[in-house]
C-alpha cells in the first residue's frame, strides 16, 4: 500500500481505518513509499494522491492495482496496468474456496450498500457466489 493511500485510509478513526491500522501493525499490509512523482497522473486522470500512487505502485511492481474507483480503473486501462476490484476479489476467492459461501454472501450484502455497484454486477456476483463449489462449474 502506498504511503498516501495509507494516510487517506487512516485519516479518521473509522472502523475500516482501525482494521487497516491493525493489518499494518501485524505486517500483513506494508506501507511503501513511492519515489516516482504521481502529480502527472493526478492531473491527467483527475485522481487523488492515494489513487495515483496505487496505480504507480502496481505499475512499478508489475503487479495488480486493487481499486474500486472508476477513474483509477480508467487510468489502469490506459497505462496497461492490471486491476481488480473488491467485487472481483470476493467472487474469485469464493470460487476458489478461500472464502466460505456464507461469509461471501454477507460481504456481498455489505458491498451492495457500500460498494454501490450496478445491479447487473450485483446479480452476476450473486449468481457466481451461489454456484461456487456446487458442481465445479462456473456460471
Amino acid at each position: 500500500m502506498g504511503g498516501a493511500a495509507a494516510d487517506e485510509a487512516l485519516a479518521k478513526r473509522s472502523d475500516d481505518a482501525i482494521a487497516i491500522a491493525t493489518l499494518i501493525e501485524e505486517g500483513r499490509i506494508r506501507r511503501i513509499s513511492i519515489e516516482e512523482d504521481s502529480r502527472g497522473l493526478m492531473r491527467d486522470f483527475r485522481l487523488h494522491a492515494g489513487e495515483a500512487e496505487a496505480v504507480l505502485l502496481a505499475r512499478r511492481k508489475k503487479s495488480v492495482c486493487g481499486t474500486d474507483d472508476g477513474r483509477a480503473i480508467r487510468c489502469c486501462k490506459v497505462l496497461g496496468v492490471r486491476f481488480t476490484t473488491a467485487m472481483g476479489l470476493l467472487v474469485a476467492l469464493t470460487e476458489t474456496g478461500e472464502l466460505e459461501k456464507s461469509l461471501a454472501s454477507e460481504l456481498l450484502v455489505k458491498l451492495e450498500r457500500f460498494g454501490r455497484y450496478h445491479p447487473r454486477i450485483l446479480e452476476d456476483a450473486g449468481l457466481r457466489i451461489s454456484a461456487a463449489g456446487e458442481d465445479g462449474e462456473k456460471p
Partner: protein
Amino acid sequence: MRRVRELAKKERKELSTVARELIDQGWVLVALREYREGKLSLGTMASRLGLSLSEAIDLLSELGVRSPIEYDDYLASYATASSLIGDSER
C-alpha cells in the same frame, strides 16, 4: 433571493446562515454529480468535500449514488483476481 428568504423564515435562521448552508449543499451536489459522471475520483471528491474516504463512501451510500464501475470492468477485475489467486496457489 425570494427562496432564501422563504427558507430562512421556515427554518427560523438568519438569512446569511441559510445562504451559506445552501452554497455548501450546492458544493456537495456538484462534487457528487461529477463523481457519478465519472469526472472525479472518489479520493478527489472526498478531498473536495473535506471528508475522509470512509465518510465519502458513507455519504455516497446514504444518497444512493452508484459507483461508476462498468460491468466489463468488473468482469476484467474478476478474471484478474481469479488468475492472481490461481498463481498464488501454484
